[in-house]
């Protein structure tokens, strides 16, 4: 009987813990079409209702980010996305006018990161990307890269002290993510839009090994790549808490919010 009571108490505390676990959403966009459909007040409400205590927000164009900074300054950690509209993900690296756009914004606003940007393989060698990397160095900004492993290598080659958040962890297998994390101490890995790290709330063994080897390097993110997906933020936070509760508490808290705070050099949450 006592065992049953103890088990019940354990389940209750796990459930309460899962409910309370704050989330730092490290991959979120509030682009022009989202601004059109969902006002910043609504976005702030969604984030608060979802228990998202902090969010690394970027947008194409930058107006959405600035709107959210005004409406939810305690939540939003602004990142500068080098796109004037969402349609530039595949062409921006060949567009020299992007540099002027980014430099102008850097003069006018405060940011913690540049990204999320899309760049693969030799894209990193283009003058636009090289200048973006240089700007990150000059302004001490994190680079949030939706890239393959080769592009990540090239970023670190250009700027060995760079801090890089690898979006979607490159959509590569956990073994490959671990290789990259071993290779670069300033590389962090977001898990946005990946569903392979858990199976119905249970962390799969390959990912568990990755989280245990690098408890300080992973983080969660929703990726609101289409405006409708803002209505997924709450579901995402809930499902994230579910699989995180399958990890030791300290690792779960790190992935949920502490790693993003450390990566962005923010004041740690209590």
């Amino acid at each position: 009987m006592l065992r049953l009571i103890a088990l019940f108490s354990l389940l209750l505390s796990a459930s309460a813990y899962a409910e309370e676990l704050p989330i730092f959403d490290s991959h979120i966009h509030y682009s022009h079409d989202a601004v059109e459909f969902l006002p910043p007040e609504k976005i702030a409400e969604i984030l608060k209702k979802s228990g998202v205590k902090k969010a690394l927000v970027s947008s194409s164009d930058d107006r959405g980010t600035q709107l959210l900074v005004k409406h939810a300054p305690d939540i939003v950690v602004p990142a500068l996305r080098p796109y004037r509209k969402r349609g530039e993900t595949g062409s921006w690296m060949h567009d020299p006018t992007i540099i002027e756009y980014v430099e102008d914004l850097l003069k006018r606003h405060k940011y913690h990161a540049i990204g999320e940007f899309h760049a693969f393989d030799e894209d990193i060698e283009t003058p636009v990307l090289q200048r973006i990397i240089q700007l990150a160095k000059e302004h001490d900004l994190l680079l949030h890269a939706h890239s393959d492993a080769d592009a990540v290598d090239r970023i670190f080659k250009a700027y060995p002290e760079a801090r890089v958040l690898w979006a979607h962890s490159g959509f590569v297998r956990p073994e490959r993510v671990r290789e990259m994390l071993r290779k670069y101490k300033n590389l962090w890995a977001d898990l946005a839009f990946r569903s392979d790290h858990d199976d119905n709330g249970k962390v799969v063994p390959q990912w568990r090994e990755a989280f245990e080897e690098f408890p300080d390097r992973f983080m969660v993110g929703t990726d609101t790549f289409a405006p409708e997906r803002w209505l997924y933020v709450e579901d995402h936070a809930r499902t994230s808490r579910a699989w995180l509760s399958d990890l030791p508490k300290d690792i779960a808290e790190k992935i949920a919010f502490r790693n993003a705070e450390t990566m962005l050099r923010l004041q740690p949450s209590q």
Partner: protein
Amino acid sequence: MRVAGRLLALVVLTLLATGTANSAEPVLSQSQIDKLLLHGPWPVQWDRDPSNRVSGNPNAIALGRDLFFSPKLSGNGKMSCATCHHPGRGWTDRLPQGLGTTKLDRNTQSLFNVRLNRWFGWDGQNDNLWAQSIRPLLDPKEMNASAGHVVKVVNGDPELAEAYENVFGAAPDTANLELTLVNLGKAMAAFQETIVSGRSPFDAFRDALAKGDEKAASAYPAAAKRGAALFFGRGNCTFCHTGPNFTNGEFQDAGVPYFLGPGRVDKGRYAGIGKLKASKLTLAGDYSDDPAKTGAWKVRGVRALHRNFGEFKVPSLRNLTQTAPYMHNGSLATLEDVVRHYSEIDVERLHADGTRVLAPLHLNDREVKDLVAFLESLSTG
């Protein structure tokens, strides 16, 4: 295999020769022909549904037909299944969104070849046709009935009650409403299994190619042939619309917005999986009549992925000309609108999780018309 290869090669050469004679004639490559042949023969062999013990039973089909067309089953006694799935309107209603007790959020799917589905409904919230047949009956926004009402109607109608007893071996059990409702769903499913589209011009073309019958293949319109070359070639439409029923039976984000209004979205497959997992009426459940639980692995194995949010069923393309308007919310009125949507698809709305399935084709006006001609050829006319 060698014989088939020679026949196909002959067809390719024939088409090439035709192309030489007239530069406007299409050329289907060997790879395109290989893909095309996988879209038949039609109709596919009929197999009874092992989860439904009255599947294929003529008495059950007759009972199911009566139930399907009976408005008495609905809450207000005015709406039957056929109100939205009208046989004279391609087994749909030809409205952008269905109309139940209120305007619905989604387009009414046609019932042509419905038995071939793996998942049912735009969100796949059921894995079998009998459960799917019950769903609209009980939905307050659709037929707005209760299990008690439906069973009472059947029990109170001497003809329906007798037909029920004939099929299921006992009178409708008013003490076990769920069981009786499931049985009624199985009878309605037995009827809907008989709704099969006929052979189309495409089927004749496909079979002619399979036999190497140049003369028969030449009867297929030139525009449709050019459209086929796009469908099985550059357009890669067959990636999702594959097999004899022109669907992979799964779900895709087709770049169609899914806001329902301010602050509301249609979560699509993501919500459908939640409902499926919560349902007792699945192939893995006690109501399946199949001791082997064939197909139950699907519901046991499926789980909601991030990508499922805003995904909707890849529909069959058969008899498309009878089932306008198109897409999950009926937002595209014509086949040309559909082709132009994919031709200029906004890839920024889609996520590149691995290989990007959809990409803008930038078709010119003639190519749009050709692809429409091909799609029209999938209908029985």
